[in-house]
């Protein structure tokens, strides 16, 4: 999902802007904070009611929506804080499609289950 221009991390001190003033608005999108994540939110797409509360509550705007519907998570910027899973108001009627557990439509899963 990394379609952004990666910020340069090799500038010497003689080339930095005094005071660390950021001159390019909106460039925090190039800062990949998804690597901080220890737990990943996983949504049961079948049982999701598209209430959009996760989209409203996400502090990193990392819940992706398209045409008014949640399509997934922006894993480049989701820090795995779990607010979406905590705030998800919908309890599954049958076991969660990924975890197999009862509970919320969005559930937090250890990142280790997706690696390797």
């Amino acid at each position, binding site marked *: 999902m990394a379609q952004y221009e990666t910020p340069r*991390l090799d*500038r*010497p*001190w*003689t080339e*930095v802007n*005094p*005071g*660390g*003033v*950021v*001159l390019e*608005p909106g460039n925090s999108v190039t800062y990949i904070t998804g690597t901080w994540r220890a737990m990943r939110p996983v949504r049961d797409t079948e049982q999701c009611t598209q209430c959009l509360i996760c989209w409203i509550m996400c502090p990193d705007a990392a819940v992706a929506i398209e045409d008014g519907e949640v399509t997934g998570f922006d894993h480049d910027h989701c820090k795995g804080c779990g607010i979406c899973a905590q705030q998800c108001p919908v309890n599954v009627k049958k076991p969660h499609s990924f975890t197999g557990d009862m509970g919320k439509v969005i559930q937090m899963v250890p990142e280790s289950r997706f690696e390797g």
Partner: protein
Amino acid sequence: MVESKYMPLDGANAVSQAMRQINPDVVAAYPITPQTAVVQHFSQYVADGIVDTEFVAVESEHAAMSACVGAAAAGARVMTATAANGLALMWEMLYIASGVRLPIVLSVVNRALSSPLNIHCDHSDSMGARDAGWIQLYAETGQEAYDNTIQAVRIAEHPELLTPVMSCQDGFITGHGVERVGLLPDEAVRDFVGTYEARYSLLDTDHPVTMGAWDYTDYYFEHKREQTEAMNRSLPIIEAVCAEYAELSGRPQPILDMYGMDDADYAIIVMSSNAGTTRTVTRALRARGVRAGLLKPRVFRPFPAKQIVEAIENCKAVAVLDRAISFGSPGGSGPLFTDVAAALYNHGISGPILIDYIYGLGGRDTLPPMIESVYDDLQAIAASGERGDMVRYLGLRE
């Protein structure tokens, strides 16, 4: 040169007159003795419509400096004033102001830091802030406090610096002491400080910027290196502003004020009001044939190391007078002493014997006989070659 108009003013009021003439865009301040008179007089000018300043009465000094940071980030010319515990409460925001490179001017009326509670003069407040990334000027008189305040605006806003300036004077001694102060004509000050055009403004929505952003392990170090470089190259810029002001006012504005240093064997280095007492004693001793000399740094940050070394390298014995203790420093010396000692070593000079006197804490009077006793000590040290105690106390009951 323009003619000054002379008025009887205390040092705090002299600063408020400078602020009236500078007419800053924003002043945010909270009262604390002995700074109160600065803001009290200035707020009257605001109330009377004599200045255009937006005056922000805040709930604390932390809020005062925070409001100054916000206003400066918006592109305003900003000033404030404080003392002692008020400066301590600004601490966190001092570093924000200097780190974001906001050219705020802060008038400090030096006062002892509690505890024990004391409202009188020493330098423990601003000396604690010496590593906060602010330029520091120290005034001997109310006249100097007035002059330094005006120059501070130009120094802080210099495009090569963009570094906040602390303009300090001694609480009560000059802050409340009435003296003859020469004020420049209003228009001369207005022309000297000019119009401030901020490089960036948070209100400039056509050119949006972010200030104070997250700066991780990847760039924080580089930004701090850039900041210290600005401070390192600031002395010639300060000297140029001071020279321009000296020409305008007819009052010399040296980085180091020197008296008798051309041939001095025995020198005293002291900042702020006590330099006046020391000058009087030095003059009397020189009349008696003692090769005494006075060195008064007007600028402490950046530290004029090379200039001080060149002035004292041929002396036999030198005393530094510190109006603050750097607790736990070598020998429990003061901050001026540790910097002078380091400067001598770094320039390979080991000739003069160097001692430190802690003096005047909590407003303790430091009188001419005490200064004379320092010169007596220096002569005895030079004659015997024995330094004795490195750190001594002047005016302390022992």
